[in-house]
């Protein structure tokens, strides 16, 4: 039998970097192959070469035995190779349907776009993912999860032979992820081969038949999923053992730092309350759209509040903007580091100095020397791998960008640090370092409020878990001994009577 995809001795160089070096692999029809590796290992690059996004420097790619020449994304699409990108490839100003059929809209006479047919087709594609999104809606109004679903629908809109999914679940909830898995399995049953790029080991074991591990652009090994273990894969991936498990902590918590009660910031935050003590890690769990991030933004002054009280160390504050919250000693690491966290075109020095301009100035003068020293300290303290503090942040890997973003807020030495999705799009190695860092902060007496959609992460980090659903805080669990099931039950069993759920939570 001819392999669906056969990659042999594939190499790719970017100026100064060898992203892929002599990588060979073969994927059979109907096989779901995981592509695993740390950020920068070359797994996305491999996917992008196969999908025609990048051209290769050396080697050969065969699809059903036919060697592929130089091809672009459009040509690859016509051959039946679909890709769902890690970073959005949607046009925000256009509708969902237009994005799905970009450049291939069904037409009526004289090239007129048949809007009704296009929307019907888009609706059907999205519906088979088990979700309802209005095809006429502009992509700009979608949540990240919805946008991801549209990306997947876009890939499914063609006759596929090979589907490449690049970190497709980064923005999805568990339910949405399950639906995606069903679709992927169905496609595989129909003979479509799938390359599934991910760092999430649990997903690979749940979904894939086989797994190819890349490390530093080279092939580290290919295994059948049934014959391997998590430990083996992690060893292949990072070359050492990594522990993401909960570390038994003997931290003492101090006085209450944050006390937010019955905060309301319509439409997404109805009535949410939380307290965080010094040295305590409180995780806000809940489904996407439950108002967690918005609640944090309201505390931080980045979202207008209609009601509720916020106290910092007992004193009420009424932040009109992030500057007021910052003044009260609150820092917030936002969810989307690219659009709202970092200055991607600027270097590390400027990024890290952004929250502490007065600290790195003498009088009215900005001091480059002080800013460089500050950035240098964080580079070594957080083990940010960069050739220099003058490197442009947009050129760093995801994990290192996330560390720069953390450094930016650590620089102001916050009393309360809100971290929204601390490890989104970050590889396993960097992830464990970020956990270590957050625990270290708590040990120093910082109050931490962490939002995460990743339940294992919540369970690994939290001293206390506060669950939100539909804009309300609906329950609380002790971090020690909590299970994913308990959290999910609270997050999904929200009824109109919040009090009932609260009682249940206390009972549990």
């Amino acid at each position, binding site marked *: 039998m001819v392999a669906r995809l056969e990659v042999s001795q594939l190499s790719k160089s970017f100026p100064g970097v060898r992203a892929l070096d002599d990588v060979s692999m073969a994927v059979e029809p109907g096989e779901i192959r995981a592509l695993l590796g740390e950020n920068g290992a070359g797994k996305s690059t491999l996917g992008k070469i196969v999908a025609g996004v990048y051209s290769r420097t050396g080697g050969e790619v065969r699809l059903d035995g036919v060697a592929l020449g130089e091809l672009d994304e459009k040509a690859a699409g016509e051959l039946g190779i679909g890709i769902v990108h890690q970073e959005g490839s949607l046009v925000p100003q256009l509708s969902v349907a237009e994005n799905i059929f970009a450049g291939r809209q069904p037409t009526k006479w004289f090239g007129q776009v048949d809007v009704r047919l296009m929307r019907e087709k888009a609706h059907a594609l999205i519906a088979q993912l088990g979700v309802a999104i209005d095809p006429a809606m502009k992509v700009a109004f979608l949540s990240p999860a919805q946008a991801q679903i549209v990306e997947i629908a876009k890939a499914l809109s063609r006759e596929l032979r090979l589907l490449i999914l690049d970190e497709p679940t980064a923005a999805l909830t568990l339910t949405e992820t399950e639906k995606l898995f069903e679709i992927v399995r169905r496609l595989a049953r129909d003979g479509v081969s799938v390359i599934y790029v991910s760092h999430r080991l649990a997903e690979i074991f749940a979904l894939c038949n086989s797994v190819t591990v890349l490390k530093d652009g080279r092939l580290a090994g290919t295994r059948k999923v049934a014959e391997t273990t998590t430990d083996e894969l992690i060893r292949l991936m990072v070359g050492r053992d990594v522990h993401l498990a909960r570390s038994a902590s003997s931290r003492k918590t101090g006085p209450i730092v944050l006390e937010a009660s019955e905060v309301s910031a319509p439409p997404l935050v109805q009535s949410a309350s939380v307290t965080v003590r010094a040295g305590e890690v409180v995780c806000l769990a809940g489904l996407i759209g439950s108002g967690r991030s918005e609640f944090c933004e309201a505390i931080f002054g980045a979202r207008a509040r209609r009601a509720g009280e916020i106290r910092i160390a007992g004193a009420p504050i009424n932040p009109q903007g992030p*500057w007021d919250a910052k003044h009260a000693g609150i820092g917030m690491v936002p969810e989307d580091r690219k659009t709202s966290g970092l200055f991607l075109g600027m270097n590390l020095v400027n990024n890290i100095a*952004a929250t502490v301009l007065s600290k790195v100035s003498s009088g009215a003068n*900005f001091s480059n020397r002080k800013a460089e020293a500050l950035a240098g300290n964080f580079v070594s303290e957080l083990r940010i791998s960069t050739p220099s503090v003058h490197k442009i942040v947009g050129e760093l890997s995801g994990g290192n960008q996330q560390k720069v973003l953390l450094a930016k807020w650590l620089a102001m030495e916050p009393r309360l640090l809100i971290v929204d999705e601390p490890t989104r799009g970050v590889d396993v190695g960097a992830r464990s370092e970020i956990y270590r860092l957050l625990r270290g902060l708590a040990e120093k007496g910082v109050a931490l409020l962490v939002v995460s959609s990743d339940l294992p992460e919540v369970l690994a980090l939290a001293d206390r878990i506060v669950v939100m659903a539909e804009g309300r805080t609906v329950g609380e669990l002790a971090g020690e001994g909590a299970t994913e099931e308990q959290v999910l039950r609270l997050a999904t069993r929200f009824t109109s009577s919040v009090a009932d759920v609260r009682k249940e939570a206390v009972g549990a």
Partner: protein
Amino acid sequence: MSVAQISRNEAQAPVEQREALPLRIVRRLANSRELTLFVLVVALALAMTIVYPHNFPTGPNMRAVLLNLAPVGILVCGMMLLMIAGTFDLSVGSTLALSGVWAGVVSGWWGWPAEAALLIGVVVGAVAGLINGLIVTRIGINALIATLGTLTIYRSLTYVTAGTGVTPISDSFAEYGRAADPVLRIQSPFWAMLVLVLIGGWLIARTRFFRQFYFVGGNPRAAQLSGIRVDRLILIGFVIMGALAGIAGVLGAARLNSAVVNAGVGIELKVITATVLGGASLKGGEGTVLGGILGVLFIALIENAMIINAVGVFWQGLVVGLVLLFAVSLDRFKTAGRA
């Protein structure tokens, strides 16, 4: 040794390799717009000195060049600040005329002291800038459209105020635009520009307050979430821009002893050209006043060369446009070298 350390060492090795000298020079030039422009300005001045020894390096010609670039040079400081913050102001030419006319009215028609006229002219400019800033930040209208609107509004207000202009204004007022230094005998608008460029250059390059504008332009949302008051800074930027247009307007009116209603028509494009040539990007987050003023100087030299050469005025736009496109295309090389 940890993974992070290993990869750091690996990352260092290829990047820090030294390149051949000529390549390094090219790269350095491409990476510093100021240096590129400086080399071009010096080269152009030398070439013109050699080719036109009797026309170019003469006192009257130099004085004319420097005096003519004064208004653009003043405006470039403010435009650079706005473009660093990711925005810009198209109404500067109209603001300039409105300020000049108000100064003319106050001094020429009402007979107030010249100092009051100067002050009122600058205040009119600052208020015009404030209105631009309020429209952009409070109402949230895109700067292109907002200042396109005020461009015609302010020009129209200029006509409404003074009809065909105020000529002559008054001798005491004119003195402020005509006074020249004893040594080089260049009139005051140039010296005002020089002082403003030096102060503006220092403020934007060195002070903490103005450093914030780079963050605003680099990523407004991230700046906001870093505790930087984005809207307030943009508002301040527009007020500074308006006040600078006011200064250029009153000095221009004083030098001519005439408040012309058509003053500054089309100057906004010249200013933006010089600002972009000087290293600003429409996306914001980069640029320096030094670059901006070198851009002004470069354009002024090219125009002067064409005047000396008796090349028709019609050709000037073509050359300036080509130079702009060439300079901006250098950025492609810059990013390619960096990746």
